[in-house]
């Protein structure tokens, strides 16, 4: 199966419009105000999809759909958000469990019909969907069971995030299309063959990125003594103007480099402020015991960012048997979205959509979270995938001893 950027763009827009239609139904019924924030298509390990929802208490509805496209969709509300909705439909209804459940089911039914109908209209066909199944629990419980005959680790997920105006909570629409029907439809909606990217290579690239994240995590561990684990790695596709929204408006500390070669683009290593102080303290030979971010902390973060960046991109260079140069790291300390915005704008001078590579790492020991985001230029990414030899996928490490 191949996908081209044009059909990914079309699918992204369809999912976004579907989510907007679903949200409009919700707003009309409840009088609440909500807006679709981001829609993206992600290639990710099926087992990792629920990670973003893991800490929370959710309610929602699942549907199966069948036709030219087949698969599952889920509408996920956090519990307090769903109570607001239920109360706006049936005042006091949230107190009555059966009523609350039935309201969520019905509202989900109406919203998701709108979502599915958009796809059917575009494909000029009908897509059937099952009655809603009410689900509640933590993140993993909200998502449908992966099919038993799943041969693939990685799946495409379409995800829209919808924000309540004036509230800090969001809700989500997920769509898990089955692989074969999706492949058929993508092949049909694709543009010229030149632009096409073989999916198996994207999957391999994703695996290489996972190795890179593990290497970066190992580097953190070696420099700080803090046991660090690579968590989720995903490759997403979104309109360029949605790229800065991938990182929130919280303040981050980290490094940015531009990398050149095959592939080329920008790479960010970001820590939340508290993590930055913790991790920098752990790198210092002497205890500083400062809660505020000092210049010494920044210098340590700058070097850590540099080393994590190398850990991340070296694997690409070694598998592709090429070299990927990067600039010295630039230290950033600003609101996340403002850090990403100039990079998205630079990439956006040549393309309307972008691939985004996101990785996260965590540790149990102390409060610590790090994110790596790469924003490759499409042209060079396509060339890199073109030159990628799948059988070299595990040759991410170079052997110094062999050369010196």
């Amino acid at each position: 199966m191949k996908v081209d950027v044009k059909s990914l763009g079309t699918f992204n827009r369809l999912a976004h419009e579907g989510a907007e239609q679903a949200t409009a139904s919700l707003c009309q019924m409840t009088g609440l105000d909500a807006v679709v924030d981001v829609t993206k298509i992600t290639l990710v390990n099926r087992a990792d999809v629920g990670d973003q929802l893991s800490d929370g208490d959710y309610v929602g509805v699942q549907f199966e759909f069948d036709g030219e496209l087949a698969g599952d969709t889920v509408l996920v509300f956090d519990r307090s958000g769903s109570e607001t909705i239920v109360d706006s439909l049936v005042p006091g209804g949230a107190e009555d469990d059966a009523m609350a459940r039935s309201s969520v089911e019905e509202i989900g039914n109406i919203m998701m019909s709108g979502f599915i109908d958009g796809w059917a209209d575009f494909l000029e066909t009908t897509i059937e969907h099952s009655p809603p199944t009410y689900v509640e629990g933590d993140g993993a419980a909200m998502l449908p069971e992966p099919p038993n005959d799943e041969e693939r680790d990685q799946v495409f997920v379409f995800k829209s995030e919808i924000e309540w105006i004036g509230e800090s909570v969001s809700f989500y629409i997920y769509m898990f299309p089955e692989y074969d029907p999706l492949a058929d439809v993508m092949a049909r909606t694709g543009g010229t063959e030149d632009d096409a990217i073989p999916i198996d290579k994207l999957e391999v690239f994703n695996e290489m990125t996972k190795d890179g994240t593990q290497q970066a995590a190992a580097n953190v561990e070696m420099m700080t003594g803090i046991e660090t684990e690579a968590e989720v790695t995903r490759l997403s596709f979104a309109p360029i103007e949605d790229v800065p929204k991938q990182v929130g408006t919280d303040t981050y500390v980290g490094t940015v480099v531009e990398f050149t070669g095959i592939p080329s683009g920008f790479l960010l290593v970001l820590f939340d402020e508290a993590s930055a102080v913790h991790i920098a303290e752990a790198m210092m030979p002497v205890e500083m015991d400062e809660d505020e971010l000092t210049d010494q902390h920044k210098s340590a973060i700058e070097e850590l960012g540099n080393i994590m960046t190398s850990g991340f991109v070296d694997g690409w260079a070694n598998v592709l048997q090429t070299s990927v140069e990067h600039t010295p790291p630039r230290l950033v300390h600003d609101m996340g979205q403002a850090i990403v915005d100039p990079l998205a704008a630079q990439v956006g001078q040549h393309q309307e959509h972008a691939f985004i590579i996101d990785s996260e790492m965590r540790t149990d020991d102390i409060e610590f979270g790090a994110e790596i985001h790469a924003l490759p230029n499409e042209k060079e990414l396509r060339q890199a995938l073109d030159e990628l030899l799948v059988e070299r996928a595990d040759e991410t490490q170079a052997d110094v001893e062999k050369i010196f």
Partner: protein
Amino acid sequence: MSDVLIADDSEFMRNLLREILEEDHNIVGEVENGVEAVETYKEQHPDLVMMDIVMPIRDGIEATDEIKNSNPDANVIMCTSVGQEEKMKEAVRAGADGYITKPFQKPSVMEAIEDVVPS
């Protein structure tokens, strides 16, 4: 005790290397880019240069190339976060005598230096 020049754009890394090296060696200078590395090398003629690769103005491989051209007997150990095979080969072509990847442990730094400038 050898005379060592440290070239790295990261203050944090220069401090770390100095702490590891100053017990057994004489640090003759700490510089932040490839141009300063070449200049300082030509003034001081240290026994060894610990050279980062990714630095502003001029990178460590170009600087190594120039130092080796001016004095083929110069000793340069690359000390870098870059772990790409092609880069290592470039370093060999420029004449580097050793290659340490960051993050490193003290013993591996000592060992690499011992190989290049035996005490």
